[in-house]
């Protein structure tokens, strides 16, 4: 599963602008397979956490209403260039992925 996730973090003044692109099908569990007519089981990211230099900045819960290959943007005041951003997600099947980036 664990396809790479992309993070970009840039400083704008004293605010770090973090953009994350996750790779995930985000199946709602309500969609039917076009060929078999069977419902495609729900498979979606439930929990996303972000830390900067180890300190939590964001803890997000996703429902099935988040689009496929979720995009997440957030802003954090205070970090410096070179600080490390780490983003983790866990989906409803227990799959997880993690990626990190340096604020530039």
């Amino acid at each position, binding site marked *: 599963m664990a396809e790479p996730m992309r993070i970009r973090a840039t400083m704008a003044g004293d*605010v770090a602008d973090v*953009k994350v692109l996750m790779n995930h099908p985000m199946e*709602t*569990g*309500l*969609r*039917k397979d076009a060929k078999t007519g069977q*419902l495609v089981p729900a498979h979606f990211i*439930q*929990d996303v956490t972000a830390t*900067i230099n180890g*300190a*939590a*900045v*964001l*803890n*997000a*819960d*996703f*429902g*099935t*209403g*988040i*689009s*496929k290959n*979720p*995009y*997440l*943007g*957030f*802003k*954090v*005041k*205070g*970090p410096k260039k070179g600080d490390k951003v780490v983003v983790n997600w*866990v989906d*409803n099947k*227990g799959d997880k992925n993690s990626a990190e980036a340096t604020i530039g």
Partner: protein
Amino acid sequence: MNALRRNVLKGTAGAGTVAIAVAAGLLKPTQAMAAWNKAAFEAKNVGDAMKGLGVAGPADSKEIAIKAPDIAENGSVVPVEVTSSIAGTTSIAILAEKNGVPLVGTYNLSGGAEGYISTRIKMGQTSLVRAVVNAGGKSYTAAKEVKVTIGGCGG
């Protein structure tokens, strides 16, 4: 539209079964699932979702800005940006009111994170996109209508 409704109903039954299995200890929820607000995320209407979030009667606020298209051609990818200028914003929740499952995501902010979230959501039909912000123990809300020409909830 009726076919979609059927699917939603079927989905409800399925989700219920899982909930019972979890309650009976047949399935071991992972830690993440335990933290995930199941009641709010499985609520089928805005009122129940709010209840699940522990929000009662949020005040309308002009300090919450929702940036979303007036018309979304493709309901499966609707860009939504929420900016809260309310001091001490600790969490933001995004709801698409007429989705089968209205609650889209919740975002708890800490450690210097600003009251800003940008995401992309699915919308089944034209509806209000609502943001609920918690700040200083109070709840605030704002909404913006997005017209959807092609629904994106798997229909």
